[in-house]
């Protein structure tokens, strides 16, 4: 008894340029402070930034074995992450003892209370490869993809998850939710979280109250790197259509699950690997095969386009794509018309 997923009148979307993410976590904190300060979601980050190659957050999120879909898009049983090895428990610190020791001869340093096993960004900046030959990493900011065919919506036996007609934002009705967590299990991106105090599911709402006012989500608006673009899929004057449909340089994460994510990524270019003599080779440090495992085969022509447009700029020629990605005119990163209120100039 599958549900009919309502086809939204419009679909709000986001593009993130991974060439510009510096891993500062400003987006993470902007989101966390705005939406997730309750005890039951202490461990949860609707927006997170993970270092790749790495385990991700929760750990193993990029392992198809944890997904509620096969890589061919068929339903299969997914995995519920736990706190110890999946998300990592929120740490508590010995602030009181440390402060009390301020005047003492022997200071007590601030450190986590109890044994720390795992946590978000536990493998931050580790990456992989051998210095200086081919070591590499990049940052992947993640949020709910507000999918066109949401696995979470499909999984809820109480029909407590809805996709809004007016903008395609996927929401949990916490009055209907009974905390069964099939949504968490099914979502390959693990972007639905369980509030273990209120015993209901919770997820990114794409800063719905801001969107309704024509203001970009906090994660995008606060990004110092200006790497996020927000708008509607069907707006041909907006950055989403230009990057996704016109230039085809932005693609969804793990398209193989067939859910139609509405968050897109411009894949990262990288410096060349070095050969045994320390000379640059023709191969990028971030293996294209690895990027393909994240973004699908469309990553190949996207990287070609990015290289070609970058070369044009180096030759002093104009490039509409590079102009857009550099975000010289930042207010053009966000286009939420007809209720646009971003005035940043």
């Amino acid at each position, binding site marked *: *008894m599958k549900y009919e997923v309502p086809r939204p009148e419009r679909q709000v979307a986001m593009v993130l340029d991974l060439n510009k993410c510096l891993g500062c976590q400003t987006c993470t904190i902007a989101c966390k402070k705005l939406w997730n300060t309750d005890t039951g979601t202490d461990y949860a980050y609707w927006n997170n930034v993970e270092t790749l190659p790495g385990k991700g957050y929760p750990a193993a999120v990029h392992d198809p074995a944890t997904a*509620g879909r096969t890589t061919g898009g068929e339903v299969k049983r*997914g995995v519920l*992450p736990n706190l110890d090895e999946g998300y990592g428990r929120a740490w508590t610190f010995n602030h009181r003892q440390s402060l009390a020791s301020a005047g003492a001869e022997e200071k007590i340093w601030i450190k986590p209370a109890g044994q720390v096993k795992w946590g978000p960004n536990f493998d931050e900046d580790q990456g992989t490869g051998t210095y200086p030959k081919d070591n590499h990493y990049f940052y992947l900011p993640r949020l709910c993809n507000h999918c066109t065919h949401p696995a979470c919506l499909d999984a*809820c*036996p*109480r029909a407590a998850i809805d996709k809004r007609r007016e903008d395609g934002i996927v929401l949990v009705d916490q009055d209907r939710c*009974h905390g069964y967590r*099939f949504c968490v299990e099914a979502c390959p991106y693990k972007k639905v979280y369980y509030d273990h105090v209120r015993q209901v599911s919770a997820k990114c709402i794409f800063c719905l109250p801001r969107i309704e006012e024509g203001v970009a989500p906090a994660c995008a608006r606060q990004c110092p790197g200006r790497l996020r673009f927000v708008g509607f899929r069907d707006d041909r004057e907006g950055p989403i259509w230009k990057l996704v449909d016109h230039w085809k340089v932005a693609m969804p994460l793990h398209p193989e699950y067939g859910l139609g994510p509405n968050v897109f990524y411009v894949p990262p270019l990288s410096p060349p690997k070095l050969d045994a003599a320390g000379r640059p080779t023709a191969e990028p440090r971030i293996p294209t095969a690895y990027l393909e495992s994240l973004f699908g085969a469309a990553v190949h022509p996207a990287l070609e386009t990015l290289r070609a447009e970058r070369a044009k700029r180096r030759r002093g020629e104009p490039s509409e794509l590079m102009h857009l990605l550099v975000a010289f005119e930042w207010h053009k990163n966000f286009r939420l018309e007809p209720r646009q209120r971003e005035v940043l100039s």
Partner: protein
Amino acid sequence: MTAVMKRTVNLMSAPPTMQPGGYVPVAYADRVSPLTGAVEIAVEPMGQGWRVTLSWECPEPVRDIATETDRFVDACAIFAPTDPESPWVTMGAPGQAVRGYLWRADRGEPWQVHAEGLGTMQRAVAVGAQANASWDSGRWRVVFTVPDWPALTSQRRLACAVWRGAAKERAGLKAVSPGWLEFA
């Protein structure tokens, strides 16, 4: 008090293929055998109300899931039809509700529940009702004391469900009585 029903009921797995949505019927299609094989049930009238006792084998009880994201508690429910035609396997149907009580191991008080089909269960405070639970020697024993239960009084039949938390049973993943259990 004389029990109007006291029997051992062999349970069946609630059919996963009937569950709402596209995920559970496929992802849990293998759950065809009940993880709780049988329940002992006793029904006793108590003035205007009822006392219903359920007892079942549970080798690995889960009483609490606080501060965890991947665990589920043990639970059981009893429900009665409000209409002679109320179907049991779907927990009622629109206009043919079932009403009853839900006990969860992490709560002191039971919920009163109302459903008109799969995925429609509403939980509410069960005014005056109690559920006293104990686990001993590998068995749960839950005694519901209900001051007023018109559906059971008028229809004189009920059904029950048991969820084994350790096996991640919740929602439609449960062992249920194979139909309404009737008494004279």
